[in-house]
Each structure stands twice: as structure tokens, then as C-alpha cells.
């Protein structure tokens, strides 16, 4: 294979990987910080996608405008959900294990609720629209403009998150909470405000991912689950809670899949992903990049 062909292959893998990373960010925040494994993550992504689709096809509003709207709406939804459910769970659960297990079940319930609500509202059919799909030539290779935008925004948002977490006081508080919940509270970090906020941000991020995804792929109420699974795989690879890990993990997964698909066939791709997933969980449960 020529260098150009390799470059194109890897680039397309990076683009898909960018999607993966973007989708994983929100989930990572929620699990890394609060040990809430939000299985319904993909469903909120789907809501963001439908919102964008509806705005674009019925009102003619560009997805770029809807992006922040999607974030805000889903963040508000996240705050509400946290207040109604997880807050009570945190108070009534004996220990962290119990809280995790119950959190998992609650997100199960949310998954059923949200997916079927969407199906009730919009019907089960496939939808799609055309936006910024013109090909852009970079050297010899051609990529769709919306996919490039996706990659760009994924990198931008991940970078922004990492910077916020590292430098701002809020971010340091979040990281402290991730490292040691009790210790953080001892030094006065306010869990009761940070938890709902971060849960909301997590959901908002999934809304952003959904918005961007709807520009490039067809959408349906059932689209969420595969993304949840991918997000799970990515955060496992990168280590729970690590934003940089999720970014690298996502991009890496995309590239591995692209190369795998090229040399074997796409049917093996899923096997490959799950195989890697299980291998990592078994041998390096703290993620590929953990220092422990």
C-alpha cells in the first residue's frame, strides 16, 4: 500500500475515532466522578440527534446553531434527572458498591423510558438530512466536510475539558472528588453542587455528540445503544475518569478498526472491538494508560 493510501486509511480511522471519543466524554465524566454508569447515555445522544434533525428539517436552523442549544437543554435535563433520582440514591445507599449497582439499574430504567418516549413521539422510522456533506480534498484524499468538522470539534471539546479540569478551580475540585470523595469533602469541596453539575455537563456533552452525529449519519430512536457500548469500550481502554485517556482510546480504537476492516472484513470489526474490550477489562482494568 502506498503512503497516500495508508494516510487516508489512518485519517478515516481518526475521524471515526473522533466520534467515539466525543461520545465517550460525557459517560467518562459521569462514571469517573460519580461512579454512575449511565447505560442510557446513548439515548440522550439520540435526543440531541433528533432535536437537531427536527430543527434542521422543520425550522431550517443550522446544526451549528443547535449545538449549544442541544448542550443547554440536555444539561438542564441532566440536572433534573440527577435531582430526581441519583441524589436520593446517593443518600440512601450504604456503600459505594450498592450505589453503583443501583445507579446502573436506574440508568437501565432511563434507557427504556427515553428510547420508548422517542419512539412514541417520532415513530420508529429512519430519518436523515443532508448538511455540509460536500467532500473536501486534502492532498489526494477526500473527506466529507461534516466528518472533518466532527473530528475538529471532538478534539476541541476534549482539549477544552482537559484544560478546564486541570487549570480551573472547578476542575481541580472535580478531579479531587474523583481521587478521593471523602478527602475532597474534608477540604470543603461541595459535592452537592458539583455532582449534579457534572452529571448535567455529561448529559450535555452527549447531546452535543448527538447533534454532530445527526449531520453525518441516519438517525432512529434505536440508534443509542451501539454508541453506549462504544463509549463503554473507549472509557475502559482509556481508564475510567481520564479525559485524555478517553480521547486517545477513542482515536486509537477508530484507527485499529479501520485497519482491521481494510485487511480483513468489517464483520470482524465488532469481534475485534469486543475482544479488545474484554482483554483490557481482564488484564488492565484500570485502563491501558494507568500507571498503577
Amino acid at each position: 500500500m502506498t503512503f497516500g493510501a495508508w494516510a487516508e486509511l489512518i485519517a478515516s480511522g481518526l475521524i471515526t475515532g473522533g466520534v467515539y471519543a466525543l461520545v465517550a466524554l460525557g459517560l467518562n465524566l459521569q462514571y469517573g466522578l460519580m461512579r454512575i454508569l449511565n447505560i442510557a447515555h446513548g439515548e440522550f445522544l439520540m435526543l440531541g440527534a433528533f432535536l437537531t434533525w427536527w430543527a434542521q428539517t422543520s425550522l431550517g436552523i443550522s446544526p451549528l446553531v443547535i449545538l449549544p442549544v442541544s448542550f443547554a437543554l440536555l444539561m438542564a435535563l441532566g440536572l433534573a434527572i440527577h435531582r430526581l433520582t441519583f441524589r436520593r440514591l446517593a443518600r440512601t445507599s450504604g456503600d459505594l458498591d450498592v450505589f453503583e449497582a443501583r445507579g446502573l439499574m436506574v440508568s437501565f430504567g432511563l434507557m427504556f423510558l427515553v428510547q420508548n418516549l422517542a419512539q412514541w413521539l417520532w415513530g420508529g422510522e429512519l430519518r436523515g438530512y443532508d448538511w455540509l456533506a460536500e467532500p473536501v480534498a486534502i492532498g489526494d484524499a477526500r473527506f466529507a466536510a461534516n466528518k472533518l468538522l466532527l473530528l475538529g470539534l471532538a478534539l476541541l471539546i476534549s482539549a477544552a475539558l482537559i484544560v478546564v479540569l486541570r487549570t480551573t478551580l472547578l476542575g481541580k475540585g472535580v478531579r479531587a472528588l474523583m481521587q478521593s470523595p471523602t478527602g475532597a469533602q474534608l477540604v470543603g469541596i461541595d459535592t452537592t453542587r458539583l455532582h449534579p453539575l457534572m452529571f448535567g455537563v455529561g448529559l450535555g456533552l452527549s447531546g452535543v455528540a448527538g447533534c454532530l452525529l445527526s449531520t453525518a449519519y441516519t438517525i432512529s430512536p434505536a440508534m443509542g445503544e451501539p454508541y453506549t457500548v462504544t463509549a463503554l469500550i473507549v472509557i475502559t481502554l482509556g481508564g475510567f475518569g481520564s479525559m485524555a485517556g478517553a480521547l486517545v482510546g477513542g482515536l486509537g480504537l477508530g484507527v485499529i478498526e479501520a485497519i482491521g476492516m481494510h485487511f480483513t472484513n468489517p464483520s470482524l470489526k465488532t469481534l475485534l472491538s469486543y475482544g479488545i474490550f474484554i482483554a483490557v477489562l481482564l488484564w488492565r482494568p484500570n485502563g491501558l494508560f494507568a500507571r498503577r
Partner: protein
Amino acid sequence: MRRDLVILFVLAGAALALPFVASDFVVSLALSCLMYAALASSWSTFCGSTRYLSLATAAFFGIGAYASALTLGELPWLAAIALGAAIAAAVAVVMGAAVLHLRGTYFAVLTFGMTELIRHSIAYFEKQVTGTVGRVLTVVPERDTVYLTVLGLAFAAVLAAILIRRSRFGLAMAGIGADEQRAETLGVDTRRVKIAGFAFTAAFAGAVGAAMSVRWTYIDPATVFSPFIGFQTVLIALIGGAATLWGPLLAAVVFSLLAETLRLSMPQVYMMSLGLLLILSVLYLPGGLASIRWRRP
């Protein structure tokens, strides 16, 4: 214990009489109830007491389904069911040995991943090696045979639950659920107990899968390894009360009836209410439905 056994026999007797007095439809409905009763009861016997949430039910169900699809031509009915159970249990032992040292969400997520891995592996194998996608079941036993088999499995699952709870094995599992490290220091071979429990749930799921596959005439990986089977089992067991004896059975019946009535009038509402019910019960009734009736000191 005697009271539990009496209740079990009475219920079994009523279920036994059903095919002779009720319409096709009611029998079908009962079959669904019994299927989830068997799955949820056996699931909670292990997962409820040890608090290791397994999402692998669909994997074992599917293995059983394929076992019967592939062998029903040559083997008699009960042998095919037994084979399904045996293979599922064997897979569970291997899976368990690799996976059961991880707790909580890791375990749940891993079992889910393994289910998907098994499903995609079988799909790939079928496609590349045998050149098919699914399997058509050509030899199909009478509907009543299937009903009685599933009834038998449900009966066995609840009976086993009753007996295991009072045995050393059951106490060991409960101990693991309460505090695993302490159980180890007290001399429980946690590894063996866990693997045995996991294999127990797998055997039942495999047998049920083997029995139900004949109802669908054509099976393919997507249908029999559907994660929904696993989710619904877990949901029913949790809402019923995973650590209780009668909870899963109660919830299985309630849900099958609820599903049917709501489906005929408002199908989406059924699924939404399922989700809502789960959330509410986790928040306000963590012990499950059965904990309302039973006041265990």
C-alpha cells in the same frame, strides 16, 4: 420451608392444568410467564445473593437455543434440552473462572461484553464456515411438550431456590454478597462457590433457550442472543426482589400480564412504564416487590 414447598406445588398444579382448560392464547401467555419465572428465579439465586449482577443471561439462552436447533434432528427432546443446559454451564465455568474476580459494574459490563462477543463469534463462524446466518428448526415438538418442559424448568428453578437458600451453598453465596472478604476469612472457597452459582444460572438459561427456540422456527444470533432477554430478566428479578424467594416469580407473572394488557392498548407505554417502574422501585423499594409482603426480621 414446608410452607414454601406447599405453595410451590399448588402453583405448579394450577399451571399443569392450564393446557387442558384454557385457550391457546392463555397457554401462550402462561408460557411467557413461566419462561421469565425460570430465568429470573435462577438468576436471582446466584446474582441476588452474591450481588454479582450478571448480564450474560442472553449468552446462555442463545447457546441453549443453538444446541437444540443443531441437535433436534438426532437427539430426543429432553436430551437436547439437557445438552443446551450442559454446554451453557460449561461456558459459564470458563467465563466465570476468567471474570469472577471482578466486582460490581466491572462484572456487569464484562458479562455484557462477553455476551456480545459470543453472539458475534457465532454469527461470524456461521457465516464463514457453514455459510448460513440462522438455523431453521425442522423437527418441532408439540406445543404442549414445550409448555410442560418450560413449566418443569420453572418448577425446578424455584424448587432449587428454596433448597439452596437453606443449604451451606446458599449461605456461602449470601455471605459473599454481604461481605466477600469476610466470607473468605471464614473459610468459604469463594471462587468455587461463585463459579458453581454462575454455572447454575447458566444451566437454567441454556435449558430455557433450548426449549423456547422451537417456538420461533427460525433462529439467528440477533434473535436468540438479544440483550433484551438479559435486560428483561434482570429487570424482573430486581423489581421482584432479587434477594427474595418469591419476588422473581411474582414479578414475572405481573410483568407478563402487564405486558400483554398494555401491548394491546398502548405498546410504547408498556416499555416506558417498565423503565419508570424500575427507577421507582430502585429508589423507593430497593428490596423489590416481594419485600412489601415479607417482613423478614
